[in-house]
């Protein structure tokens, strides 16, 4: 486990990290409660809207329109923001974005910035980059503050500190903020954060934020939040720097009539989140008098180029897909080794970084499709997952050259292909397998195979080859001309009931 847990390189596979997460019972309990609670709330507020499916379709279509003409919309956005008194910067990657942000901060002589929680700034590891310039980024979202004080990483897009209980938060605040007396009442814990951060809000001259939506036609930016720390950061400092992925642009102001209905209901299960701020450039006498917008690519144009993967950029980061995912519910966010966890992470991260660096993530799913059903912008996540799995396999075969060809899975697949091509070989193989599996099969299931085949069975159970195959049964049936009773019973064997199960008397139950 000496490999570093960095967001840029994905050193551990999903399966490796998931195993550790599954052993953490606190995390599983909190996550189970969280996902169930939000799931139920979401379902009830979504059911309130008779036109939910029409809204989803409109959301999807607006995103499709934008993405297919992204270059035009980005230029429109740039012009509109400049017209309104803002400055626009373009960043090809994380390093460039951080250099731009640090440059602006230093130009204003600031040693601290206040920060609104944003996945994009986490993606580029802005806090660390600013740290290298001697600038401290202060997280102002309650959960992010908890994570920052504890030197940990977020486990849920929406409730990043979901893995921490109130007693742990109390101890953390007492130690790091030097408070001697504190109860573990959530209201009191929140009040501590309020007092601590209020002084920062009133004194730190520069703020950074992410962007939920940016309107190409008007240059209007929207930030959606709950706690009011967003409003503080967007209103009080002299300088505001907002960093957005290039996919966050939407064509017109009117499009908010769709997204303001889709996002809060999908996200927190509320009819509307407590606060949404919209601003257009610089407003004389109200809010920051310098506004910088950083447009970040960092792999997005690569996602755009893939016809099936492109829809991933529809994502409005609501986290609904996390809360319905049976895999996420058990492993939590850390297992994905990325700022983007859950089903969206499983498709976005490998595309942003390339399947060669995050090839285990497309397998972090059972393809049950629940994520697709809830996605407010209709991203067909299972379709993209399958598409990416194919890329992972192709990548192994081509880039790893002879090594890829000697990969046990690749060899196995080639052998299977030969076997399936000839009926004789197929039957011989079945006979062989029936003998070979005897030490491993239990009740018709093979849970563990010896190396190197164990690679396949660590994450899956195999059906054992049945005692009597369909072919055997069919041949017998033809000889007798009708289905003998005992053999009809034997059909059960074709469903994988083996001798052991029969002995246990399960067959007739």
């Amino acid at each position: 486990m000496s490999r570093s847990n960095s967001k840029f390189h994905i050193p551990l596979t999903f399966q490796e990290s998931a195993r550790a997460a599954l052993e953490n019972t606190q995390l599983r309990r909190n996550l189970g409660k969280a996902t169930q609670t939000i799931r139920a709330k979401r379902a009830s507020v979504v059911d309130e809207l008779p036109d939910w499916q029409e809204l989803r379709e409109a959301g999807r279509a607006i995103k499709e329109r934008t993405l297919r003409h992204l270059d035009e919309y980005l230029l429109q956005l740039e012009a509109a923001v400049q017209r309104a008194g803002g400055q626009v910067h373009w960043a090809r990657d994380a390093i460039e974005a951080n250099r731009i942000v640090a440059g602006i901060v230093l130009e204003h002589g600031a040693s601290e910035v206040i920060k609104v929680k944003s996945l994009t700034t986490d993606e580029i590891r802005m806090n660390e980059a600013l740290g290298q310039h001697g600038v401290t980024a202060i997280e102002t979202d309650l959960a992010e503050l908890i994570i920052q004080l504890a030197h940990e990483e977020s486990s849920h897009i929406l409730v990043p500190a979901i893995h921490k209980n109130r007693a742990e938060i109390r101890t953390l605040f007492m130690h790091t903020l030097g408070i001697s007396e504190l109860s573990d009442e959530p209201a009191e814990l929140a009040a501590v954060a309020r007092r601590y951060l209020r002084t920062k809000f009133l004194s730190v001259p520069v703020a950074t934020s992410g962007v939920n939506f940016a309107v190409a036609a008007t240059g209007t930016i929207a930030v959606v939040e709950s706690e009011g720390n967003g409003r503080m950061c967007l209103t009080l400092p002299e300088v505001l720097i907002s960093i957005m992925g290039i996919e966050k642009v939407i064509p017109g102001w009117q499009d908010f009539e769709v997204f303001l209905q889709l996002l809060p209901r999908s996200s927190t299960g509320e009819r509307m989140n407590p606060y949404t701020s919209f601003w257009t450039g610089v407003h004389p006498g109200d809010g920051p008098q310098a506004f910088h917008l950083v447009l970040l690519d960092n792999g997005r144009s690569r996602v755009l180029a893939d016809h099936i993967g492109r829809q991933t950029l529809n994502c409005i980061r609501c986290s609904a897909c996390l809360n319905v995912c049976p895999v996420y519910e058990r492993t939590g966010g850390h297992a994905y080794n990325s700022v983007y966890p859950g089903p969206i992470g499983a498709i976005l991260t490998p595309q942003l970084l390339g399947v060669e660096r995050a090839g285990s993530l497309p397998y972090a799913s059972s393809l049950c499709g629940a994520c697709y059903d809830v996605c407010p912008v209709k991203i067909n996540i299972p379709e993209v997952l399958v598409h990416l799995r194919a890329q992972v396999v192709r990548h192994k075969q081509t880039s790893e050259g002879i090594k890829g060809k000697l990969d046990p899975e690749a060899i196995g697949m080639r052998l299977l292909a030969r076997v399936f091509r000839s009926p004789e070989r197929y039957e011989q193989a079945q006979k062989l397998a029936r003998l070979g599996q005897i030490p491993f099969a239990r009740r018709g299931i093979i849970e563990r195979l010896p190396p190197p085949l164990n690679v396949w069975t660590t994450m899956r159970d195999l059906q054992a080859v049945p005692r009597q195959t369909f072919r055997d049964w069919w041949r017998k049936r033809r000889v007798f001309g009708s289905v003998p009773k005992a053999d009809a019973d034997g059909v059960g064997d074709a469903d994988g009931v083996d001798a052991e199960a029969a002995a246990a008397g399960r067959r007739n139950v």
Partner: protein
Amino acid sequence: MSAARDEILQRVRLALRDVPQREQPTDVAVERGYRPTADASREHVIELFVERVREYKATVRIVTAHALPTTIAESCAARGVRRLLVPVDIPREWLPAGIEALRDTELTYAQIDGCDGVLTGCALGIAQTGTIVLDGGQAQGRRVLTLLPDYHLCVVRTEQIVGLVPEAVARLVPAVCEQQRAITFISGPSATSDIELNRVEGVHGPRTLEVIVVTPD
């Protein structure tokens, strides 16, 4: 302009090679099959607004225009507000006697932070979501006024209440597209569910939101 700009645009155009040259954005159909307006009656829309704001644990009172000043006085007294922050263009007749109203004539953050509460009007109310919309227009002032004080008393006239989100977005077109005003949507007091998913009202914004709905006399 910058090399980064050129390169990103270049990459995006390359990625979009499959989009036909002649295709215009509007060629990509956007079906807006959702409801543009509520079909409920005015009374029902107003009732719904009150109900939905209350669900956010905000206090809502319904009074006639005539009774507004007394209601404001009562609310302030109940909260123990001594110094009440108000935007410069607050209607004179809203203000009751006996309350020290501090008008925002370029007050400092410290002065604003030192007030016990703030009184404003609003641009719109949205019934569907129980939302109050501020657009910096009449009786609303700059954004910081409704942010630092711990208590926000907001006056909503019934004709400002719309049914659905699309109606509100449409009404805000002039403010955004022509006047480039900053807009704030407020739905209940600030809140967090970050600690074990327990909702706590009030983290950084006003921890108490009180709404007075004013019907014509």
